[in-house]
């Protein structure tokens, strides 16, 4: 009994001690609260980011998680008109190619300053081009995906995966005129100047914080302080802070911005919420004001709650890949045509994809120059499909059908559903399907693109800029394991189109190439799916962009 009482006393003493401890702790810790209240009146928007940005120098990444944030702070020479894929002036008021397409002259907007107070001018533009071209180190170069895509290579290539550089030099003719000289013309321009990776950043800040320093140790990378917390541009917002623990990136209004004006909001916070359902819950709870890529199945529910689901015009394509090095029967055009005739794309789009999505008739979405309606079409016709298979002696065709799991893509909200619908159609025309499901990061892309293990597969593409080459050039511009065919005529047509001077001629060259592709049918285009962005009822001024290029400068919180 005595022992018990003792324990009780001890317990009481402990609780007392804890209390003393807490009080003494609170004496030594100062609350850092700012009780003054918010200064501005423009309000704050909290937006749900789908993933963690690695850092904020857009040239070292190809991830939307970073771009969604940097496009609020940085500007490109040319930009997409809000809500469209058409070009409009940004830092450059005019951009003119020479006749041979090897020189681009930019007239620059005047009176623009970076958020660190330094002036934006032709020298700053050339500094950025030179910086990219002269980037040293395999660690840095290996991550400049878009730069390498567009410009081929660097002053000193550190990998055999790179090719000859397109860039020759950049001249600052006068403070408001920058001239970009290329070694050969490139069809991706001027559209590729809109790429977030090619944003113009403050030369002073880049130098001050040693922005080019990307180091690699063991199996990991480290970036400079610039990339983590000093990214400096001309846009309506500027960087404020990045709280890793909370997963919050805070931008504040850039009061000196003339691109086109300081943001209306005081603050723009990006909150990282990787789980789709968690984003939905956060919106419901009012923790965030909007998020990207709501699941199509949730549109109705979100709207019922008063949220605005803004559907983006499609800039994606979903296709059924065909590997001609797989099952030899796939070399026969009649078999490939049978696949196209055998898939009920109309029904698939209506029943499985979100509103705004359309049936694809070629590999280029409608919004892109180079699209043409004048291609061979393959409307749903199972009888004809069976007939074609019979003619080709492929009535007992059996195909390894690869599809990814553990992933959603803007062009493929639900891969398993997509697989089920398409394989059912193919079974109906007498094809035996051997399904192979692989996780997206767990080897799917390797097996399909690097090793070509499949007969047919699901994949797609989200466009980066308004040029058909970004789609068909990437898919069919050269021999690839993914499709396993060799068609020199087609490769040449696409190469010529890429090198054709900008304007009508360029678009025509791609229209011809698209016709050729749909005659040859190296794969089956399925759909142009439309992803969406959702914001609550209070938010005004978000314009859904086909290129996910939503800038929040005009956003107000009503």
């Amino acid at each position, binding site marked *: 009994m005595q022992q018990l009482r003792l324990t009780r006393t001890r317990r009481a003493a402990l609780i007392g001690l804890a209390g003393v401890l807490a009080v003494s*702790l*609170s004496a*030594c*810790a*100062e*609350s*850092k*609260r700012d009780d003054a209240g918010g200064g501005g009146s423009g309000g704050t928007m909290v937006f749900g980011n789908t993933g*963690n940005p*690695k*850092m904020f120098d857009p040239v070292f990444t*190809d991830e939307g998680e970073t771009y969604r944030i940097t496009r609020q702070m940085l500007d490109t020479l040319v930009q997409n008109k809000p809500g469209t894929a058409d070009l409009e002036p940004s830092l450059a008021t005019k951009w003119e190619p020479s006749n041979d397409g090897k020189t681009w002259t930019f007239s620059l907007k005047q009176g623009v300053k970076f958020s660190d107070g330094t002036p934006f001018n032709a020298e700053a533009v050339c500094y950025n081009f030179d910086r990219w071209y002269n980037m040293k180190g*395999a*660690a840095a170069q*290996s991550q400049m*995906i*878009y730069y390498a*895509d567009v410009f081929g290579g660097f002053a000193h290539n550190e*990998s055999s*995966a790179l090719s000859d550089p397109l860039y020759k030099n950049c001249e600052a003719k006068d403070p408001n005129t920058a001239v970009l000289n290329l070694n050969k013309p490139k069809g991706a321009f001027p559209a590729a100047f809109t790429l977030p990776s090619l944003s113009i950043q403050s030369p002073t800040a880049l130098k001050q914080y040693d922005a080019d320093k990307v180091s*690699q*140790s*063991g*199996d*990991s*990378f*480290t*970036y400079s302080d610039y990339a*983590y917390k000093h990214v400096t541009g001309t846009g309506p917002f500027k960087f404020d802070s990045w709280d*890793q*623990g*909370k*997963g919050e990136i805070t931008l504040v209004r850039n009061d000196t911005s003339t691109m086109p004006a300081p943001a209306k909001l005081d603050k723009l*916070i990006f*909150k990282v*919420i*990787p*789980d789709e*359902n*968690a984003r939905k*819950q*956060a919106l419901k*709870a009012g*923790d*965030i004001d909007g998020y990207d890529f709501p699941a199509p199945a949730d549109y109705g529910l979100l709207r019922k709650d008063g949220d605005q689901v803004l559907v983006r015009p499609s800039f994606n394509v979903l296709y059924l890949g065909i590997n001609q090095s797989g099952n030899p029967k796939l070399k026969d055009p009649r078999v490939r045509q049978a696949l196209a005739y055998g898939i009920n794309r109309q029904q698939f789009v209506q029943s499985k994809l979100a509103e705004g999505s359309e049936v694809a008739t070629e590999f280029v979405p409608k919004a892109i120059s180079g699209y043409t309606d004048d291609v061979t079409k393959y409307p749903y016709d199972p009888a004809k499909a069976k007939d074609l298979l019979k003619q080709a002696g492929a009535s007992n065709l059996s195909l390894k059908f690869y599809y990814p799991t553990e992933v959603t893509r803007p062009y493929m909200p639900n891969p398993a559903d997509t697989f089920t619908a398409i394989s059912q159609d193919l079974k109906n025309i007498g094809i035996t399907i051997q399904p192979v499901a*692989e*996780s*997206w*990061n*767990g*080897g*799917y*892309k*390797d097996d399909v*693109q*690097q090793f070509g293990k499949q007969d047919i597969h699901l994949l797609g*593409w*989200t466009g*980066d800029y308004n040029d058909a080459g970004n789609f068909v050039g990437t898919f069919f511009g050269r021999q690839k*394991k993914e499709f396993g065919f060799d068609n020199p005529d087609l490769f040449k047509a696409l190469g010529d189109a890429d090198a054709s001077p900008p304007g009508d001629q360029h678009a025509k060259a791609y229209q011809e190439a698209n016709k050729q592709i749909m005659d040859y049918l190296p794969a089956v285009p399925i759909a142009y799916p439309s992803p969406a962005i959702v914001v609550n009822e209070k938010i005004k001024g978000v314009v859904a962009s086909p290129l996910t290029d939503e800038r929040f400068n005009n956003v107000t919180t009503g």
Partner: protein
Amino acid sequence: MLRFIVRRVLQAIPTLLILSILVFAWLRSLPGGPAAALLGDKATPEKIANLNHVLGLDQSIILQYFKFLGRAVTGDFGNSLVSAQPVMSEIGTFLPATLELGISAMIIAVVLGIPFGYLAARFRGGIPDNVIIVLTLVGVAVPVFFLGYTMQDLLSAPLGLPSQGRQAPGIDATAITNFAILDGIMTSEWDAVWDAIKHLILPAFALATIPLAVITRISRASVLDVLNEDFIRTANSKGLTQPVVRQRHVLRNALLPVVTTIGLQTGALLGGAVLTERVFNFRGLGFLLAEGIEKRDYPRLQALLLFGALVYVVVNMLVDISYGLIDPRVRVR
């Protein structure tokens, strides 16, 4: 006691070393890799191969392992490929959240589990016993994420409890230790303390279900065992009052297996935390782990998995030590 602890620490070293080999080999045997995951849609096979080369992932696994080990013994586990932050500082940032969640869940599990188990044993075969047994079965069987989603949809709004994150957006709490509750107490920001507690309730209950169910069942079984012992009959027959028999004889003896279970469940909590933290967007180690697995973030996964193993080893050591405190008969030499 000191010798015992030293011995256990020394035993832990080979354990961790073997684990590091297994973790390393297992990660690299997974299909896919960080390069493909990092570069996303736009990467050509050539670019992926190039990034693998830059990261040294095309070297032999044995060479890679020794390089990793060489850095690891100096405490350098590299940078996360997802966040580009040193993984050790990531663990430092995210650990408090997991501890807060894990401790809350264990408190719930223990505070409810032992009385429930005792109750069930005392009224063996009666209504409380049957109800508790069925509930524990459900508790073990229902997946944490399903429970999490269900709680969010059904309980969050009616109870006014947040279903997301650790803190309300506008709370502006001062962060000192990253333990939200502790920080709030230290800075006397009482609204932040209350806010942090509210954010803990749903995820902590979700995470607590499995340990709660297990602890309840073990307590019940253990109490039943003890109730049948001779010394209980002796205690009763010598006329001790019921409370004394229960507290001193039944509970104390029944607690031993329960403590083992608590230890094991604590170790297993990190597994449950992966799902709970993801569902509730509660940014802790489990959240970090889930993101790392998706992106095949080798450096982060290596560090986190070894850290998890270390926690397990330490918790088991603490369990062994606590035996002695409860039962002098097994006091360690």
